[in-house]
């Protein structure tokens, strides 16, 4: 793969961006139907809905004109399964298998929106036609989740259409490893796994450690009950994590990485494996990436149901195939980590921010968030709240905004008292 070939794929896939931002198609595929294939909506039968949709389109003779895509999580799990029809951006919620023939006949063939299935605002009770106009999305700022619900996570070319692997290309051809680390430091990105350690500093420590072999590890052992931020990113945009890990590998001088995922996340594991296979096939993982002489490859390791393995040293011990017991620090992983070699270990969401920071720049990233914590944060909303699901907001957003505006408040008009 050369940079020019990456650009050619991007140009070829342009309709992924244009039709889904409301423009008329130029390639004859006049509509894109995006159906949520995250764990939440899959549990509410979205895979059968997608298959039924394809069969009905075939029957109606318009299978060539409509592209059906099973995406990652849109975030509004409470109203799943969710379906969006582009270019008009009509937002159907709680779709059932039996509704599919009506959507195909009325909307996709005759162009009449099926009003009864269009999402209703939880407060005004009015139909809201477009996803972005909903109260749920309006106050959000999606960076790590930007592609979740927007692309087919099982098609690397859709990721490339949305500037995928362009950051890796830029890093390998225009930046020095130290330049990458400096950018991460200046961006102020902090670890999203909970510790909030400055990512750039962590990379610097590993870069400073002298060794022939270093590792890049992704902590996807998301074990805190009620949290599914990392799972949704792996299900909805696995290539963002792969690309970021390759960038990290270049920055610290590592040629191998591991993603440690919980076995409780089968869809995430399957999509990630497929994404890694595709990246290898396209030459975006493996030897001599973009003809620069940089080598990097990834492995997946599955957890086996041990909460403690989310702790970084326990996780590394578990990758080594042993009982996942934590080991004392120091030495920190950046000095002596996986198999005794210098290792950086970052969380899924942290990695998902990296390609965007490289492409859009430090200034863009630091314009969001607070004085001491830049960017955005993904939150999983669960329990007694109207819009259970996944949201992303700038750092510093108040809990009240998240719960009352985005989350639609507490069911039954109850008051939010404390947290």
């Amino acid at each position, binding site marked *: 793969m050369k940079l020019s070939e990456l650009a050619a794929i991007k140009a070829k896939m342009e309709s992924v961006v244009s039709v889904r931002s409301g423009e008329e198609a130029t390639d004859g595929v006049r509509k894109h139907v995006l159906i949520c294939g995250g*764990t*939440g909506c*899959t*549990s*509410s039968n979205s895979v059968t809905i997608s298959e039924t949709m394809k069969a009905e389109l075939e029957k109606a003779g318009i299978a060539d004109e409509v592209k059906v895509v099973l995406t990652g999580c849109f975030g509004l*799990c*409470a109203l*799943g399964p969710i379906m969006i029809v582009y270019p008009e951006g009509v937002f159907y919620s709680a779709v059932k298998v039996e509704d599919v023939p009506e959507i195909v006949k009325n909307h996709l063939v005759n162009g009449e929106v099926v009003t009864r299935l269009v999402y209703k605002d939880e407060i005004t009770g009015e139909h809201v036609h477009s996803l972005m106009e909903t109260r749920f999305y309006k106050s959000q700022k999606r960076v790590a989740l930007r592609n979740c619900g927007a692309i087919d996570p099982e098609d690397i070319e859709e990721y490339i259409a949305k500037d995928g692997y362009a950051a890796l290309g830029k890093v390998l051809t225009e930046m020095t490893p130290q330049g990458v680390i400096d950018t991460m430091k200046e961006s102020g990105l902090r670890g999203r796994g909970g510790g909030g350690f400055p990512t750039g500093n962590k990379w610097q420590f590993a870069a400073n450690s002298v060794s022939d072999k270093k590792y890049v590890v992704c902590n996807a052992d*998301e*074990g*805190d*009950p*009620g*949290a*599914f931020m990392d*799972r949704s990113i792996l299900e909805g945009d696995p290539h963002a994590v792969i690309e970021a890990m390759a960038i990290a590998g270049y920055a610290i001088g590592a040629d191998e990485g591991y993603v440690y995922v919980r*076995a*409780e*996340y089968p869809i995430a594991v399957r999509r990630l494996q497929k994404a890694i296979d595709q990246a290898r096939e396209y030459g975006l993982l493996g030897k001599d990436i973009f003809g620069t002489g940089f080598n990097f490859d990834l492995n997946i*390791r*599955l*957890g*086996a*149901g*041990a*909460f403690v393995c989310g702790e970084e040293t326990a996780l590394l011990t*578990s*990758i*080594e*195939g*042993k*009982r*996942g*017991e934590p080991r004392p620090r120091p030495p920190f992983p950046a000095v002596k980590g996986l*198999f005794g070699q210098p290792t950086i270990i970052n969380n899924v969401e942290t990695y998902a921010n990296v390609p965007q920071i490289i492409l859009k720049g430090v200034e863009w990233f630091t314009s969001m968030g607070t004085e001491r914590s830049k960017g955005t944060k993904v939150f*999983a*909303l*669960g*329990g*007694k709240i109207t819009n*259970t*699901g996944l949201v992303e907001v700038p750092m510093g957003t108040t809990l009240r905004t998240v719960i009352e505006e985005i989350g639609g408040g507490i069911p039954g008009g109850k008051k939010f008292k404390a947290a």
Partner: protein
Amino acid sequence: MKKKMTTVTFTGTPEQEQKLDAIIAKYGKDEGAIMRILQDAQEVYGYLPIEVQKMISIKTGVPLAEIYGVATFYSQFSLNPKGKVAISVCLGTACYVKGSGPVMEKICELLGVQPGETSADGKFSVDATRCLGACGLAPVITINEDVYGKLQPKDVADVLAKY
């Protein structure tokens, strides 16, 4: 939590042992192979009885104590045979708050087992699982590969009747 050893007689077949050999050949030289061997071996046998652990120890040269240590550390490794219908009830916080406790009680009552046990006819096994991350649909249970969300105790009998 201490894991109980099974009293069920081990009935491994030569075909299963062949598969085990293939698994060990596949991972044998990798660093940190034991966990992956155990994960795949559990797919083959359905559980990890001491007999299988001994075979792995002899074939890989890794001490049995180490293998037993790993097998008992991770909650996904089972030393007991599972039922043909494996039920997992999520007792993560979100599901628990939304009432997965009563759902678990109802399942146990209907099947006459305790969590972690297999019914007398060997058909159903019931386990508590950690958060499945489908909290938007809490409370959630999985039966083999199927997921059931927003489940109430009164729905349990109908769901079980499908199996």
